[in-house]
């Protein structure tokens, strides 16, 4: 009996020991990383939607004063869109702090965005205790982090047979070939290995030959030499007998990143568009969340792949939407990103990539005035720390898999009897390679991308009432002048915002025991150039408080004495000063 007790006791201690892997005294802090986090997460693997949710819950439970957990809506198949709000809840009203929105995984197969976003939440909470910079940041700012805004697609990518590029869309069914049948001819996991790879066939008339550097690879035969392989495309069969293979599957129903409410175009102009902006439930939930949080001043969405820091516009028609003042801010943050993220390039969607209408970043900026970037995570540069091509058949990809991943990322070619093609071979890279980060590179790149988001967030407006001065005008009249400054590079209203009055003006109010007779904005203090606001003079409306600049306002007060000036800005927060 005693023995049994002892055994169960030791089992108990063992399991407790597993929860906390190491005793604190056995660990030594590596610079810039939490040494003994309350929430243990291994950042060299991926998590499905339930796994992501569990980590979110653990973070919120471990740090109730720093993290709040909620679902902002449901996906098409009813999965929750989980959101972590990260700020110092003990200091200030979180809804009035300048906000940084981060999401990932809008495209189903672009999964690491969720881990990158989640890493940000984890790092901020775990580092708060011993990092002064993070403490100050979370006192001033609030992060809204939605690791995956496409959980149906995520789980489908992870749990269903797929390749690195499928599925791209969410799972709302569409009749892609307009034949009246829905999803009747999808990719097929013919060899049942959970991956959708490639089909090739030995043929004297094929135009590909075995790559002498790596026999798993095929390269184009020279114009003057015979080939040995025919490439038959992605694993599949013509199920509906229409002469096309895999033309109507669930893997490409629509593109969730062509569904946003700025510059939206229908499917025949913009491939991937669905019925109308926000016709997909996941995007609608995000839109409603953003509309309810006008304090969001900056946004980041994570995609893959290619190593890019993208800004809009997505369509050439919108070039003039971005004026010089906004471009300065965009360029400063984007260029900083190039420094922080080796191998990543700061680019403009419409001119460096392709024209895309109805994209998420366009709606965030042009529709809501929010400075927004989309990062295309993972670049072949990270394999050997030098430029590499994105070509799947490029040899460095094979050699990286051979020497650093020990061929774990490849399904070896194996013969298969195909009902339409006869004897073929099936094989190729697994879905978790070429677009998703290999495990050992995941955490470091997540950290770098988080650093970029933090710099972005840090750049959102930080307002202060810099000075309040009083001047006696005689006859019982006082002139009260207040200077309101913005200590960061982002203005309270982007130029797109000012132009379209997306958010209301900033309000600068004077409270005093005296009677406020007049109020005005001061364009030039030295030359006494002012514009009077005749109605409601105690609250002066200013359209914008520029980045690293200031606005000056002035009141004429009868009587007076004590003065309190409050600035109320949707994206700049609330600050006060007294004299």
């Amino acid at each position, binding site marked *: 009996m005693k023995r049994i007790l002892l055994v169960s006791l030791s089992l108990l201690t063992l399991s407790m020991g597993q929860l906390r892997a190491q005793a604190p005294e056995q660990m030594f802090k590596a610079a810039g990383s939490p040494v003994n986090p309350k929430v243990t997460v291994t950042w060299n693997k991926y998590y499905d939607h339930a796994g992501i949710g569990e980590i979110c819950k653990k973070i919120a439970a471990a740090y109730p004063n720093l993290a709040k957990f909620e679902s902002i809506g449901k996906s098409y198949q009813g999965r929750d869109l989980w959101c972590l709000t990260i700020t110092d809840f003990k200091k200030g009203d979180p809804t009035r702090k300048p906000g940084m929105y981060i999401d990932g995984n809008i495209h189903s197969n672009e999964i690491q965005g969720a881990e990158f976003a989640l890493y940000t939440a984890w790092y901020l909470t775990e580092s708060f205790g011993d990092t002064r910079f993070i403490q100050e940041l979370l006192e001033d700012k609030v992060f809204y982090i939605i690791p995956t805004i496409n959980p149906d697609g995520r789980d489908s990518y992870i749990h269903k047979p797929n390749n690195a590029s499928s599925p791209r869309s969410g799972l709302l069914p569409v009749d892609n070939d307009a034949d009246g049948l829905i999803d009747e001819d999808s990719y097929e996991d013919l060899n049942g290995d959970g991956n959708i790879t490639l089909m090739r066939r030995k043929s004297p008339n094929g135009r590909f030959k075995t790559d002498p550097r790596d026999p798993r690879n095929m390269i184009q035969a020279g114009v003057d030499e015979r080939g040995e392989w025919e490439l038959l495309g992605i694993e599949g069969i013509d199920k509906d007998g229409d*002469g096309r293979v895999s033309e109507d599957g669930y893997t490409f129903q629509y593109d969730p990143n062509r569904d946003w*409410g700025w510059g*939206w175009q*229908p499917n025949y102009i913009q491939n991937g*568009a669905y019925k109308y*902006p926000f016709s997909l439930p996941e995007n609608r939930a995000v839109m409603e969340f953003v509309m309810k949080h006008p304090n969001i001043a900056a946004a980041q969405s994570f995609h893959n792949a290619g190593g890019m820091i993208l800004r809009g516009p997505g369509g050439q*028609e919108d070039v003039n939407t971005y004026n010089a003042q906004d471009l300065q801010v965009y360029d400063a943050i984007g260029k900083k990103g190039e420094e922080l993220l080796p191998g990543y390039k700061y680019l403009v969607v419409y001119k460096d990539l392709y024209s895309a209408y109805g994209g998420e970043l366009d709606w965030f900026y042009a529709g809501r005035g929010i400075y927004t970037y989309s990062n295309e995570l993972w670049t072949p540069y990270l394999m050997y720390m030098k430029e590499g091509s994105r070509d799947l058949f490029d040899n460095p990809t094979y050699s990286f898999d051979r020497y650093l991943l020990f061929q774990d990322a490849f399904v070896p070619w194996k013969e298969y009897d195909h009902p339409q093609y006869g004897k073929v071979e099936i094989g190729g890279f697994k879905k978790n390679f070429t677009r998703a980060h290999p495990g050992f590179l995941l955490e470091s790149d997540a950290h770098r991308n988080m650093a970029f988001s933090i710099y972005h967030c840090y750049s959102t407006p930080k307002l202060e009432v810099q000075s309040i001065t009083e001047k006696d005008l005689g006859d019982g009249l006082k002139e009260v002048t207040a200077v309101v400054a913005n200590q960061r590079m982002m203005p309270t209203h982007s130029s797109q915002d000012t132009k*379209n009055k997306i958010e*209301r003006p900033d309000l600068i109010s004077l409270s005093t025991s005296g009677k406020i007779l007049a109020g005005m904005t001061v364009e030039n203090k030295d030359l006494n150039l002012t514009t009077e606001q005749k109605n409601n003079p105690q609250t002066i409306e200013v359209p914008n408080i520029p980045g690293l600049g200031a606005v000056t306002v002035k009141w004429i007060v009868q009587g007076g004495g004590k003065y309190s000036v409050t600035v109320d800005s949707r994206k700049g927060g609330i600050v006060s000063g007294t004299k």
Partner: protein
Amino acid sequence: MRQILLASLLLWLVSGVQAQEYSSYADQLSRLQALSKAWPSLVKLQSITKTNGGKDCWLLTIGTGKTESKPAIAVIGGTEGNHLLGVEMALGFAENLLKGSGTDSIKNLLARTTYYVFPNMSPDATEQYFAKLRYERYGNATDTDDDRDGKLNEDGVDDLDGNGKITLMRIASPIGDYRTHPDDARILVKADAAKGEKGKYRLLTEGFDNDKDGYLNEDGEGGIALNKNFTYKHNTFAAGSGDYPASEKETRAMLDFLFDAFNVYAVVSFGSNNNLSTPIAYNPLLARERILAGYLEPDARVNGMVSELYNKVTGLKDAPRTNPGGGDLLSWGYFHYTRYSFSTPGWWVPKAKADTAKKEKPFTVEDPAANYLRWAQQQGITNTFTEWKTIQHPDYPDQQVEVGGLDPFVLVNPPYKLVGGIVKKHTDFLVKLAGQQAEIDVVNLKTEKLGNGLTRIRLDLINRGGLATHPKLAERSYFLKKLKVAVNNTGNQQIVGGKKITLLNSLEAAGSQSFSWLIKGNGKLTIDVGCPTAGTKQVEVTL
């Protein structure tokens, strides 16, 4: 005999709720319910959404059998909230059609065509006509910040003269840009500085500057206007348009329904836009823009053909020119829904001729209000103008402020006694339009035995209709079903030549396409042809 009795009983029932005046929301509903009660086998009534004002947007499906698989026309009223006539036209069309459903011609029509009637897509706004305070309203009950100052609905119109209507307000001012109409002193027209004309008045809508921001009536109740909320060239951030396209429940409910209705080949909406009196012309430059801005040539031709039909059937002329303003239903129907799309106001104030007996002269300045007053007088219509009356206005102290002007609604909604005739003409048009719809048929079906169980099948697919199976633009659409030709061979029948399934983008009016297959085997097989916008057919072939 019993059938006739029943029919007359139904007629009586329907005429029992025959309206004598424009129908309010409640009256519209009882008329709809009467229809669904009287013709339960032909009618399905459903609510597609409830507005923020708590009103249902109704959809009446009229047809027989599997209505979703028959080519369909969508008929839409209440496109604009001030256009009560459009509601009457949609509702009246449904009533007329159903009343005639005993006749062979309507029976045949409903055997092959489905009508989706949306009688009123702006129920929050049209109700303003029946409210205590009558004014022309476009927006729904969504709270909006039209002047983008952070406050909602804080400065709307006010009835200063207490007549229950919102008219105009004129303020005598040396910096005003309006002057009195030279031929009718009641009317104000813009002074043209280029012609040396001097303004005498500022012209504003009736109301106070409720929020004291220096702007008058700039952010009143209501809301988002349906006809500004669609996705084509949406004027994002403009008052009444919405912060993004399809922001409103009404818009989305309609789009959700229509995008799933693959059988709809034409949308006919009633509102201020008009491409039926004068068709939209083909403009090769606009039709080549990346973001398509003009009709494709074959589709412009169809618009011309249908416009001709409309003018012939209705006999209407002198329609004012219109230009869709973006975010509108007419443009959406073509450019984004990729179906044939038509719109008409149904009525406009006729050009009033000068009555020489009364020594009237032709107008020296064209003006709709002046023309209306002359026409109204000739028609014996009175009490639609409020004479200018001086009032004390707190926002304009020490200034001469007068309230008066033409009644709201009268320029776009005729006296109710004219509505019956207008509805009748448009019913005829909607029936004749269905007569043009694409109809797929198979002709010249031939089999040749080539020996040893090998048979060649040949046939021609033809379109007997006056419209193509799909507009040219729809050939690119994601939300239409293609014309499908499918051979249903059984186990012992092998297709050795030709495709089992062929998808065609379109078959034009009076167009044809030949098919042939080589089949090894014997017995019978069937071939299905068709698409939801043109109907389906099955032929049987003996090998």
